[in-house]
């Protein structure tokens, strides 16, 4: 439990693990809104959560057959993010984006930009980058320095809200 007085806005850390399209929405909605409310917000992107941070024009990541195959099954880039259920070869994700657009829900790309504008700390996981062979140059701009578990935990220990999405 973090120590702060009742009228200060507090802090939040989100572990962005899944990388699924339908989980990017709550991740970016909560983090941008938290930052807009004056909170100190950090998102730690790890495992599958790292793939949406790869630039959309990077076709494949990885350093050998297996890591390339993983990236092949998990297309890097936010625009290529899949639905966690009923993805149906991408048509589910396409439909979800259409429904969002119709209801004026901003796409994850726009919400991610808002996060950057609002000063959300966006931390890629160094270990996952090494594990999956994702190079810093392949990732979008505006991210924080890659960090490890201890740094993430240090932040989480001081956060009022910790989420794993």
């Amino acid at each position, binding site marked *: 439990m973090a120590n702060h007085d009742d*009228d200060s*806005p507090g802090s939040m850390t989100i572990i962005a693990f899944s990388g699924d399209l339908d989980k990017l929405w709550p991740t970016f*909605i909560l983090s*941008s*809104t938290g930052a*807009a*409310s*004056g*909170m100190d917000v950090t998102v730690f992107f790890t495992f599958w959560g790292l793939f949406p941070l790869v630039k959309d024009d990077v076709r494949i990541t990885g350093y050998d057959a297996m890591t390339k195959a993983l990236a092949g099954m998990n297309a890097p880039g936010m625009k290529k993010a899949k639905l966690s259920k009923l993805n149906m070869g991408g048509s589910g994700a396409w439909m979800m984006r259409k429904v969002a657009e119709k*209801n*004026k*829900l*901003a796409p994850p790309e726009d*919400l991610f930009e*808002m996060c950057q*504008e*609002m000063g959300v700390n966006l931390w890629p996981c160094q270990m996952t980058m090494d594990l999956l062979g994702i190079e810093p140059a392949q990732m979008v701009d505006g991210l924080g320095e890659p960090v490890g578990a201890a740094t993430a935990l240090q932040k989480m220990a001081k956060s009022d809200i910790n989420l794993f999405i």
Partner: protein
Amino acid sequence: MPEAAKTVDAKGQSCPMPVLMTAKGIKELESGQIMLVEATDNGARSDIPAWASQTGNELVESEEADGVMKFYIRKK
């Protein structure tokens, strides 16, 4: 109605945009000045007051007519 130094038009925007636009808008104001936020998203009915309470800015007055919510917020 209080006189607003600035108006944020968030009509037609869905959660969380009205709150994000409100947060961006208030940065352009001086302390004590009033900003009007107009929204049509049903979530804004509770979200704008929640944002005000969280940030310490004062929700001076709110009203709703013809599907448009109006929030008058005084910058702290």
